[in-house]
């Protein structure tokens, strides 16, 4: 049997060799952190502290009443210097709590550590995960406890841990699998328990044989878990593609994984869940791959949330002269940043500095109808037609062509020989179509 | 006042040229323009019908009830077309044969009904006469241009099948036969249209 696969996708250069062999090291604890009150999908948090308050590491400093939300915690000890709007990597200013550190790194612990999962009920697990402020660390930043609370009548039988890490350059998840396999297995157990799921699958792209080996060893003796080798192809880590590849189930258009009895979590999230449940540790740090030809010393770093990207890049030796693009996330779906003055948030899997040589230039040439985008689209759309409709403002036509189903993976733009920024056009169409539906 | 008569004539030839500006009466334009002789013949036949029907419709405009005006117009036009058909058949049978079914089809040539509806049904007789002549000549001009291109390059002749026939090129010339085919008619008309679009744009700018 070959590696698990899906239809479509592209094969961008991996460029993971820059950091794949570098073990995760802790970055220095910053003097100042900026903690946005919204680092997740859902309702923003209200601050629980005032300017001038002293805070300790792990202290909850923002929370919300809403179910779909996640609290935020202080990631260093010190004083709250300001609560004001600050640059957010998603592109707008968001109210953030700015903490000046005292350099002492004093921890506060509100949760009791547990040694055995069996001691906790599903409700307790969910409560711990929520209060730890855990969200999807793969980038989507969807609150983890919400995913673990399926609505009535939706039975979940399978939990998939996403270790595909199909984005080029990024190696954070890869390193976690090599270095923290027990945490991942423990986290998976916890998730399965919370959902009452009988099957756990860890999906890993087959360009990471060492991770496959380590994880296979880690699950030895656990009959309800399996490690699946995935064909190396972008976007193998996209929710729908991963579920199709590992279980042959198709998430219906407009539906969620739980519609096919599946919940999936990223490797990083799983580790965070393990730590929250076992040690009571809130989400105050995460692994960030700082890489790209523009970075002088690429690294996989354990970074306190709220650390400014500029400080992190400084720690990695600074940027090269010919850096032309700074990206939060991977090169396929990440967001280009105008400055390095933005904090690491829960969804920051990587900080990428690309030189002019690596970064693509899209010039919006004439479509030659080569159908590369049609072949590449994992969702079976006809990207060039949607883009064309969007370009001419024909949003009815774009809707008929299923613009709203686009997962914005970027395959079509990547593969287009004419250099048309198809994904960008489709995003415009998708936004318009969704806006019209709401109206 | 005189100026307005002249304007009625020139408007049909240039500004509202049926072929190039209004894109009307395309069927005969494309079909009969293989030779200049046919194009010219068709053009003049339309001038005759258009002028006569314009005069009659204009002079009867107060007596034709609004609701049945279209059938009335059609009967008037059909009458003149029948007359022209018989005249052609009697005096220039070769032309009549060449134009074929397109002679009776002048009835449904949208230029004629269009002028009746837009102009002759509302305007006095003299002006309608001028309008008829103008639009008719404009149409003839279109046919002439198209048939000129098609005959010269598609056949290598000028005014073939008439007493003034000229062989334009030497014996080694191989004419572009395509232009004499239906596809050639579409092609040349399309190109001429684009060309007039360019010319008119330039004129309007200056």
């Amino acid at each position: 049997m070959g590696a698990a696969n899906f239809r479509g996708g592209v094969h961008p250069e991996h460029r993971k060799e820059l950091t794949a062999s570098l073990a995760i090291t802790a970055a220095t604890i910053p003097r100042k952190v900026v903690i946005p009150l919204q680092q997740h999908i859902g309702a923003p948090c209200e601050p629980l502290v005032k300017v001038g308050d002293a805070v300790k590491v792990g202290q909850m400093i923002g929370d919300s009443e809403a179910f779909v939300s996640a609290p935020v915690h202080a990631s260093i000890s010190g004083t709250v210097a300001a609560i004001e709007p600050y640059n957010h990597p998603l592109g707008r200013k968001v109210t953030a709590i700015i903490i000046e550190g005292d350099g002492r790194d004093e921890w506060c612990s509100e949760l009791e550590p547990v040694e055995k999962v069996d001691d906790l009920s599903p409700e307790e697990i969910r409560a711990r995960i929520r209060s730890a402020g855990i969200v999807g660390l793969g980038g989507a930043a969807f609150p983890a406890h919400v995913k673990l609370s399926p609505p009535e009548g939706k039975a979940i039988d399978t939990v998939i841990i996403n270790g595909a890490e199909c984005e080029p350059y990024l190696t954070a998840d890869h390193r976690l699998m090599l270095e923290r396999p027990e945490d991942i297995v423990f986290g998976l157990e916890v998730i399965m328990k919370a959902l009452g799921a009988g099957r756990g699958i860890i999906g890993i792209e087959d360009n990471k044989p060492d991770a496959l080996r380590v994880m296979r060893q880690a699950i030895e003796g656990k009959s309800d878990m399996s490690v699946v080798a995935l064909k190396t192809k972008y976007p193998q880590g996209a929710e729908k593609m991963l579920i199709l590849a590992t279980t042959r189930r198709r998430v219906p258009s407009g539906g969620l994984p739980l519609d096919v009895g599946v919940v999936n979590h990223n490797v990083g999230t799983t580790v965070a869940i393990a730590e929250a449940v076992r040690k009571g540790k809130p989400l105050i740090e995460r692994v960030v791959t700082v890489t790209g030809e523009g970075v002088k010393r690429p690294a996989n770093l354990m970074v306190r949330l709220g650390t400014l990207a500029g400080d992190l890049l400084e720690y990695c030796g600074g940027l090269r002269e010919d850096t032309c693009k700074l990206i939060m996330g991977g090169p396929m779906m990440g967001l280009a940043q105008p400055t390095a003055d933005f904090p690491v948030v829960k969804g920051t899997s990587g900080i990428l500095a690309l030189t002019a040589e690596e970064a693509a230039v899209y010039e919006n040439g004439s479509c030659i109808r080569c159908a590369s985008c049609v072949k590449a689209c994992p969702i079976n759309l006809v990207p060039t037609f949607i883009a064309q409709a969007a370009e001419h403002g024909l949003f009815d036509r774009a809707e008929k062509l299923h613009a709203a189903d686009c997962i914005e993976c970027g395959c079509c733009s990547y593969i287009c020989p004419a250099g048309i920024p198809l994904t960008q056009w489709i995003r415009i169409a998708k936004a318009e179509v969704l806006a019209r539906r709401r109206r | 006042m005189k100026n307005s008569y002249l304007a009625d004539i020139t408007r049909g030839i240039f500004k509202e040229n049926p072929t190039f500006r209004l894109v009307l009466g395309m069927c005969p334009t494309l079909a009969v323009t293989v030779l200049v002789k046919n194009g010219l013949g068709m053009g003049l036949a339309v001038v005759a019908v258009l002028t006569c029907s314009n005069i009659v419709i204009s002079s009867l405009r107060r007596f034709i009830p609004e609701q049945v005006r279209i059938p009335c117009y059609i009967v008037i036009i059909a009458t003149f077309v029948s007359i022209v058909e018989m005249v052609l058949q009697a005096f220039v049978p070769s032309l009549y044969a060449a134009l074929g079914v397109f002679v009776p089809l002048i009835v449904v040539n949208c230029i004629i009904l269009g002028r009746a509806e837009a102009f002759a049904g509302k305007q006095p007789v003299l002006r309608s006469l001028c309008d008829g002549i103008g639009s008719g000549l404009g149409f003839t001009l279109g046919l002439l241009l198209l048939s000129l291109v098609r005959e010269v390059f598609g056949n290598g002749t000028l005014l073939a099948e008439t007493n003034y026939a000229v062989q334009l090129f030497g014996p080694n010339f191989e004419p572009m036969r395509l232009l004499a085919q239906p596809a050639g008619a579409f092609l040349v008309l399309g190109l001429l249209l684009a060309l007039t679009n360019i010319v008119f744009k330039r004129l309007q700018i200056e």
Partner: protein
Amino acid sequence: MNGKLVISSSPHVRTIQSVQSIMIDVLIALGPVALVAVLLFGKQALITMAVGMGAAMLTEALWLRRWNIFGDGSAAVTGLLLAMTLPANVPWWIPVIGAAAAIIIGKQLYGGIGQNIFNPALVGRAILVFSWGSRLSGKIWPVPKPFHFFADISAVTTATPLAGEAEAMEVSLSQLLIGNMAGCLGETSAIALIFGAFWLFYKGHIDWRIPGGYLATVWIMGTLLGGGIYINPYMTGLFHLLTGGVLLGALFMATDMVTSPVTPSGKLIFGVGCGLITMLIRLYGAYPEGVTFAILTMNALTPLIDKFTIPRKFGEVKRLVRP
């Protein structure tokens, strides 16, 4: 770090493939065919192809007022493909007019690369066929003189194998494969055509569906009707595959990206349609060859095919697959 950071929408990396690289791949794929044509028909083949390519590139450069004669390479492909559909002994002005018509009428009037509805090379060829038909698709074709580069190939002529029963009987299978027979430059050698097409398949520039649908339809119709009750026993399915422009058309013309459907099922429909029309014309029409008309007709139907074959989107299922 100097200068400003560039802000743009993701993705931030891109394939190295470009329109130009695709066109160069097509030219490479046409290499073997061109080589065989020169070996068979000598200098006249070389002149015809060079003139066709040159005229096409020059016309496009003049139209676009561009100094770079090669540009994205699409004009060179059009010119070469047009020359491939001509016999070796045409006068020089035939490829010149054909290439100019192909570029202007077939392509630039529609707005240039990617915008045209019809395959430009075939538009050029169709215009030539109906203007100077006796020059390029008459009954009399030059006979190849292999390896005689300077020979005058117009001296000895014959009919194409497609002309009728007697002519079909005269060619052997090896002749059909190697191309040592009367025909257009790019139509004679089946081996060279298939060899070249492999490069395009390897590079992923052509989808199997168009040539597959085309060739299968021709073979099936040829076997059922060509060698059966109609016309003659020598014109079998294989004969129809290897003669005339079927291979050139199916592998290089019908697969033209711009003028064929983009959807997978659309491509198959397109291929089958081309095959059907080609064989209808060959078996029942007035012309011995139908490839040009078949592909042009299907080009016209491409927007409709595209419109009605939009693939089913991911997860578009009524019933959920649950274990």
